[in-house]
């Protein structure tokens, strides 16, 4: 029995990566849930909005680096993030003007808007690949680790190393700031409250003189900010590839649905539920079990429920189960 080493291994391979991935999913799911709550459709283009935002941020990052500007120990991409958000906001506002506004005017059924968003998805995907290419891009710079595995082993004398990457730390800090800012905005400001009112009861919101076009525009700007932030954090933590972001759509939707579509708190909870499910199901538990169990009980196999290639099956299974058993999600969905 070696509980300390087991805890360190668990932190290193499950809890820290799961928390960082969960925060990224939560930010993504918040965007999906806002669109669902206010524009009332499932936005399939969200993954590609994230990809576009990240691509823009990467280009600005390259620009900054070319000018000799960097952010010291932190990734330069954080400096470029506001520019990426701005450009993405322009893209989604333009898309809304060109595409979604027409369907709002004719009061199209939500399922039609979903199909429309799929079209938007393909176009955005194309734009992103056209601008930045299809290859994998690493754009992380600055200090790599907050806690280095080797130094941790030397300092503690434990057999297991603990690595805490800068990008993971940044992910958690930025996610907390973004979520706090979003909730402050929704609950404390007049515009935020009018967005919640619009989501709660559209007719009454109109009767109260709330301007729907303004609510929609503000929503898109917030969605652009959340999507770009989520995309950049994910890209810093792993790497950027346009196609990966399209695939992220599944866990992001699963997160939003698990938490309750339209409910921001639910999106955050859902993000962590999905992330930890994925990580725990695809993690090989042999190491942790070997530390915890008596020596002759140590498992011979990897004790991995599913290969990492199947991680999307986890979100998909959870999505199906939730829709069958509790379609409104953990928190009651469909209102902000």
């Amino acid at each position, binding site marked *: 029995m070696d509980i300390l080493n087991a805890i360190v291994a668990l932190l290193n391979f499950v809890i820290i990566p799961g928390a960082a991935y969960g925060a990224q999913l939560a930010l993504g799911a918040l965007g999906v849930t806002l669109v669902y709550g206010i524009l009332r459709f499932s936005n399939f283009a969200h993954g590609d909005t994230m990809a576009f935002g990240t691509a823009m941020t990467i280009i600005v990052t390259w620009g900054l680096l070319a000018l000799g500007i960097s952010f010291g120990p932190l990734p330069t991409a954080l400096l470029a993030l506001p520019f990426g958000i701005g450009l993405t906001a322009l893209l989604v506002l333009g898309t809304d003007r060109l595409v979604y506004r027409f369907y709002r005017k004719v009061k199209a059924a939500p399922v039609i808007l979903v199909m429309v968003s799929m079209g938007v998805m393909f176009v955005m995907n194309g734009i992103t690949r056209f601008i930045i290419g299809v290859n994998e891009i690493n754009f992380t710079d600055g200090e790599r680790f907050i806690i280095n595995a080797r130094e941790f082993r030397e300092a503690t004398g434990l057999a297991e190393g603990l690595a805490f990457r800068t990008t993971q730390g940044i992910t958690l800090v930025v996610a907390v700031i973004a979520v706090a800012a979003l909730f402050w905005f929704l609950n404390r400001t*007049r515009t935020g*409250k*009018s967005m*919640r*009112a619009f989501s*709660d*009861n559209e*007719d*009454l*919101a*109109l*009767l*109260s*003189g*709330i301007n729907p076009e303004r609510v929609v525009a503000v929503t898109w700007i917030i969605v652009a900010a959340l999507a770009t932030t989520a995309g950049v954090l994910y890209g810093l933590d792993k790497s950027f590839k346009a196609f990966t972001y399209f695939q992220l759509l599944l866990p992001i939707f699963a997160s939003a649905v698990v938490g309750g579509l339209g409910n921001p708190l639910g999106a955050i909870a859902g993000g962590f539920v999905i992330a930890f499910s994925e990580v725990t199901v695809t993690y090989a538990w042999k190491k942790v079990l070997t530390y915890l169990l008596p020596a002759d009980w140590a498992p011979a196999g990897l004790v991995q429920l599913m290969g990492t290639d199947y991680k999307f099956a986890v979100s998909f299974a959870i999505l199906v189960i939730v829709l069958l058993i509790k379609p409104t999600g953990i928190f009651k969905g469909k*209102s*902000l």
Partner: protein
Amino acid sequence: MAEPFLIGEGMTGGYGGADILHGCTLAVEKGEIAVIVGPNGAGKSTAMKAVFGMLKLRQGRVRLAGEDITALTPQARVMKGMGFVPQTHNIFTSMTVEENLEMGAFIRTDDYQGTLAQVYDLFPILKQKRNQPAGELSGGQRQQVAVGRALMTQPSVLMLDEPTAGVSPIVMDELFDRIIEVARTGISILMVEQNARQALEIADKGYVLVQGANRFTDTGKALLADPEVRRSFLGG
């Protein structure tokens, strides 16, 4: 006689398709209570929605303080000082009582704290529950939130679509008392009511509608005293 403060005159129209209203006229004087009663399907709510611009009129005009507002959208009529409380879905259930009232004051650019205090004076229970989600309140309290929300714009006319639907008789009496209080502050009230007898008791003017047209129009007291109205619409 001068023209009434708000009048919907000779209104004919429906929600597309067949007409529901046939030359219906409704009017209310400043600070008075006008009540629309009638059997189910008589077009009571439709008539009021027509006054508020929620359906297209084929004929007839709506005038507020002498100004023709027939072509205005409901939102524009709110700006002109009309308040409307729908029968259902008339509050933001996920928002607190105070946030509901704040949203009522959304179009106001001045300080609405005074109006907020007035609404709390009128409905003391709302002040107690100001930080509770409105969806958690009882039926009568929800109606108070709905009326309070509409009052936040400081309207000159308040239109209520069956404010006492689904509340107990005691709560109904209390709501009627509050409505009288609102009218005393100079706000005209136009309301549709299912509880015809009680509503006519507080009405300065009553309209009995049948099949989208005026059948009887008189003061509330006179309608209550009219044997034919009693027999046909008030159950004896």
